[in-house]
């Protein structure tokens, strides 16, 4: 491919690609994000390739492997363009039918269509599926039209037009003004205004200036950054290019989690392609602006998502944060002015430049503009990635999009903000979700993890889970975080084991506050949040553990016993077969028993019983 030398040449190339494509040609788009690949999608892709070859359809039918579509619950899935027919939970055996019946004859295969559990209606088209219908997918929606390995796909939908617009008609200051006016706030956790950060970095003394894309995504239970980087790497590159131009940077980094091999692969390929066509490198589009990007794989440390630890890690040191009397925008990576933004933040930038700040600011709420991608997971029917305008209520996300709680169980809480966030109880379900509202009730937006919990989730156990996570991830440099989190965890361990004391709740509260006040970085500074919010909203559960030695959700092993409900037991022997200690016993067809002396509470019998006859008390 020859290098593009001007905005005009880019526009011509986009037009040429579009002209070469027949919008009516059937295109089978198959989701090949990490989630769907885990379902075994690779095999299905092979089947499609073989079938297309076998029927000699190479010229008539296109097969596109795309990134994550978002509806991970129903994978493996395909969308057949141009009609956008949606098939879910497909298997390799379905492939010949999909091609012969649907692609060639326009017939809908009923068994593969999605059935709306609420209305029991079959839904044929992707845009009619309630999960998608209620979202606003400006950023993530592009994933379905793009093969991440194919830069042409991105160019065909107008990719790099934002960059071209910035380079050809806007001064760097004007780009910054636009981002400020759009009121874009960082999607990585803190919600810091992006335009202001860019401006500080631009104005800071010192050369070179660096920009970095934070793709460390450490929140355990969140994967929207990965899906964006994996599914639409050129969008992130374009955002970074626009930012680099505005800030006056010629060197960028992408710091990506080591656990995301596919994202690393796709972004590496995208960078090579962008270099090939001259969208990265020297004198981009003939503007005199030069910029390139290096990729850095992380080493599996949550704290490295924190800015100063991330810089240390890129510099080849262990990722210990430093105190922030100097801003990163003045002295960051290699002590040079550095602008760090999250993947999704970068991904929003091309939209703002293309469609204008006024359009962007009209989405969402006054102080939280645009959309946010959440990873909706846990005890929820429609697990997946959802993109919604800021200000939507939690209820709409959990019930209208998420389809509510599985098995008819009762909603208890939703945890937002990752390990630094908080648990939000039912009473706030109608609260609008944006940066400020979440902060008001003691949680935070965080990067976008949204973990739904039902009445079988123990809030003390969840708080303990996050503390354990943070205790392990604490870098150990400052005492309040290293020792304080450990001490809080020991208290929670005790409570979960039935050894809690009356004064423990009080101790947790003041100790939490001390850790917040005394820690060096935001890891420690927010570590007590999950404990403090669960105490605030679920104090009764703590009290049940401490005073009554009971775990109401039936989770904390020391406080529960397994027994058999004689009325329900059919004597099928399933529990006895799986019990590792021979605690569950009985003769076939007779009521079984659990010997509490031998029971190690592993839960195997509960899981194996098909008659709901194992009781947890």
């Amino acid at each position: 491919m020859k290098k593009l030398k001007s905005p005009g040449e880019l526009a011509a190339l986009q037009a040429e690609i579009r002209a070469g494509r027949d919008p009516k040609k059937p295109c089978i788009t198959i989701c090949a994000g990490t989630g769907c690949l885990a379902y075994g999608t690779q095999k299905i892709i092979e089947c499609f390739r073989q079938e297309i070859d076998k029927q000699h359809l190479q010229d008539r039918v296109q097969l596109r492997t795309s990134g994550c579509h978002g509806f991970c619950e129903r994978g493996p899935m395909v969308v057949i363009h141009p009609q956008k027919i949606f098939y879910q939970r497909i298997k390799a055996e379905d492939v010949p039918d999909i091609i012969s019946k649907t692609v060639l004859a326009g017939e809908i295969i009923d068994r593969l269509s999605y059935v709306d559990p609420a209305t029991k209606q079959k839904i044929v088209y992707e845009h009619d599926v309630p999960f998608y219908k209620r979202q606003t997918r400006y950023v993530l929606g592009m994933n379905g039209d793009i093969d991440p390995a194919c830069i042409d796909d991105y160019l065909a939908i107008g990719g790099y037009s934002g960059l071209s617009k910035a380079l050809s008609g806007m001064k760097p200051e004007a780009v910054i003004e636009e981002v400020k006016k759009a009121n874009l706030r960082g999607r990585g956790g803190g919600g810091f205004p992006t335009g202001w950060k860019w401006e500080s970095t631009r104005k800071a003394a010192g050369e070179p200036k660096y920009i970095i894309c934070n793709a460390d995504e450490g929140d355990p239970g969140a994967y929207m950054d990965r899906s964006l980087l994996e599914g639409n790497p050129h969008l992130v590159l374009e955002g970074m290019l626009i930012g680099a131009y505005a800030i006056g940077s010629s060197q960028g980094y992408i710091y990506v989690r080591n656990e995301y091999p596919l994202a690393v692969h796709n972004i590496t390929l995208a960078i090579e392609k962008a270099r090939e066509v001259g969208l990265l490198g020297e004198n981009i589009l003939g503007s005199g602006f030069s910029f390139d990007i290096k990729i850095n794989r992380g080493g599996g440390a949550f704290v490295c998502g924190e800015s100063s630890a991330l810089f240390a890690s890129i510099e080849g040191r262990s990722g210990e944060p430093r105190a922030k009397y100097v801003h990163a925008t003045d002295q960051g990576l290699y002590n040079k002015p550095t602008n760090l933004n999250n993947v999704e933040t970068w991904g929003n930038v091309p939209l703002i430049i293309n469609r204008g700040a006024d359009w962007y600011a009209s989405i969402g709420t006054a102080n939280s503009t645009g959309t946010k991608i959440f990873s909706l997971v846990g005890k929820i029917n429609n697990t997946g990635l959802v993109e919604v305008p800021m200000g939507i209520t939690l209820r709409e996300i959990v019930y209208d999009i998420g389809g509510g709680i599985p098995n008819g169980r009762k909603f208890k809480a939703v945890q937002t903000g990752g390990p630094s966030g908080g648990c939000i109880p039912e009473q706030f379900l109608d609260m609008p979700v944006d940066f400020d509202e979440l902060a008001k009730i003691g949680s935070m937006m965080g990067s976008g993890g949204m973990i739904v919990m039902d009445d079988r989730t123990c809030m003390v156990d969840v708080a303990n889970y996050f503390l354990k996570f943070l205790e392990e991830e604490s870098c150990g440099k400052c005492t309040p975080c290293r020792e304080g989190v450990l001490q809080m965890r020991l208290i929670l361990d005790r409570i979960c084991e039935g050894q809690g004391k009356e004064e423990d709740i009080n101790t947790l509260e003041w100790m939490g506050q001390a850790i917040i006040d005394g820690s060096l970085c935001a890891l420690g500074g927010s570590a007590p949040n999950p404990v403090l919010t669960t105490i605030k909203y679920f104090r009764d559960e703590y009290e049940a553990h401490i005073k009554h030695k009971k775990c109401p959700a039936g989770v904390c092993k020391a406080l529960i016993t397994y027994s058999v409900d004689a009325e329900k037991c059919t004597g099928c022997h399933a529990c006895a077969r799986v019990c590792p200690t021979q605690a569950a016993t009985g003769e076939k067809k007779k009521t079984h028993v659990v010997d509490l002396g031998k029971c190690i509470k592993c839960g195997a019998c509960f899981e194996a019983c098909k008659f709901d006859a194992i009781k947890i008390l």
Partner: protein
Amino acid sequence: MQAKIQAIISRYGSDKGFLVPILQDVQRELNYLPEDALVMVSTLLEIPLSRIFEVATFYKAFSLTPRGKHLLSLCLGTACHVRGAPLLSGHIERALGIRPGETSPDLEFTFETVNCLGACALGPVMVVDGEYHGQLTIAKTNAILRDLGRKVPSDEEA
């Protein structure tokens, strides 16, 4: 070994800043980070061994002991946690007789726990030698262990 390490370091232009990715590549090549390898990296990059050791012990991705033939990575991310992953972790610990992060003495199994594999819809999830296993139950876990040639408790009486 020296040639391999030399090749990896050259790939990064002997740039000290790439210590983390260099160690990642060395580990991929050698399965773990033996002491000799660390000494070699230290000499070639002219970084004190203590610094290399600091980095190699700081990041979870590195192992200073040999790793097993089979790698089991069980997700303990939040979504998997609330869906019962801790019970599975306990079960695997008992079945293999090792704790998370350890390798069985016969070098057959390494069992580790990880945070969110990004396949939360399938939770609880475990990656076994690169292959994903979703909606994991104790029964499914037993089947996996059995496939890898490990006896599980319930086999005895079955």
